[in-house]
């Protein structure tokens, strides 16, 4: 129990953000906020990560990259979209190359509001992500299928029923 709670490792990916949110994500690691005291590590490696922090929206070029990072993360995993850009494209929404928010390509679990998102709210998002990780782990142990996959199957069957 509570195996994941004490060591959530994060991978941070910069989509097409203005870098504002990224600075704030990195600010969480500085002495003032020091998220490492909760066991959080900012790894650069999706295969070691539990939480995917994405800033900025999805554009034609990074769509594949985001999908691949998500696929390479081992279960259980949680996606946190940081900032308004990651929610729906934000101020870049109308740009010709922007497809929209992160949820256009991968399932997002938590949205952190703000432009730029404040470090406090990012930390809050991560704390909620940790609880969600635990929940997903429990789900897996109980049902033998990962939560994300189960939801995907459910959505697909819903779609089939509708059509």
């Amino acid at each position: 129990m509570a195996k994941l709670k004490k060591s959530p490792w994060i991978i941070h990916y910069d989509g097409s953000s203005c870098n504002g949110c990224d600075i704030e994500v990195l600010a969480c690691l500085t002495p003032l906020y020091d998220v490492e005291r909760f066991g959080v590590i900012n790894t650069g490696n999706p295969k070691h990560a539990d939480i995917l922090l994405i800033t900025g929206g999805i554009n034609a070029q990074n769509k594949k990259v985001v999908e691949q990072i998500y696929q390479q993360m081992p279960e259980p995993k949680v996606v946190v979209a940081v900032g308004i850009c990651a929610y729906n494209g934000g101020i870049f929404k109308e740009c010709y190359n922007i497809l929209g928010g992160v949820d256009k390509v991968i399932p997002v679990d938590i949205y952190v509001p703000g432009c730029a998102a404040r470090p406090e709210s990012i930390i809050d998002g991560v704390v909620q992500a940790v609880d969600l990780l635990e929940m997903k782990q429990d789900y897996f142990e109980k049902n033998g299928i990962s939560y994300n996959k189960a939801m995907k199957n459910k959505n697909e069957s819903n779609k089939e029923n509708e059509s």
Partner: protein
Amino acid sequence: MLEVILRGLVFIIAAPFVGGLLSGIDRKITARMQGRRGPSIFQSFYDVRKLLSKQVLIVNSLQHMLVWGFLIFVVFTGVLFFAGEDILLVIFSLTTAVMFMVMASYSVNSPFSAMGSQRELIQMMSYEPMLLISAVGFYMATGTFNIKGIMQANIPAIVYLPGVFAGFLYILTVKLGKSPFDLSNSHHAHQEMVKGITTEMSGSVFALIEIAHWYENVFLLGIVGLFIVSNQWWSWIIAGIVILITFFLEILIDNTSARVKWDVMLKTVWAITLVVGGINIFILDIIR
């Protein structure tokens, strides 16, 4: 024989606790040096517990086996050392262990992994001569390669081998994977090649690597102690203190230096090996 088995067992059981705690203390001190509060000193245990419970993305089954080989040979190295066997055997066993690690990393297609293993090989090339010189030094100082014999010496080895000891401390930074020589796998985020040698390892496979590193670190600090101990009981206390100071200095160096390029590492390590290690051995050869 019974004593040997007993010592080996004590090492197998106790080393992960000591090693894990040491790495936790390392992270705590590092954080304090940077003006942060830092994680709990048990953080490494939490990390490994989490890794063991996560999904493993098996890249190929060969890698899994080779990682086990790495762990087993590292443990074997430590058992040989703490059971008081031949120091040459210990060094060869360590080399074999690292070879397993390199092959595990090479067995996948990832360019980051491949680059990490190349760098690991270069690291090996740089520190291996000094390791052998240390073994030779022990022999010349105490007249035996047997670790039990070395510990029974009247005069501690460091009296004859100050240069070799300095050289060994230098390669210890490479072996512990600390800056400025953390080329193949950095503990800190955002290395230019993701996570180097461990890039393709996830979940429990990565946990095995962490546990192997705990064993390895305990064994390496054990060698530092071997330089100090003699047949006097108080030499053990001094050895303990020297080990702690060494450990602290490693963390200090880790936090105050930037990573160097491989050629700088190779040149300086070989230069140190040749100058302090070589001259030390040469003088010892003349006076004894």
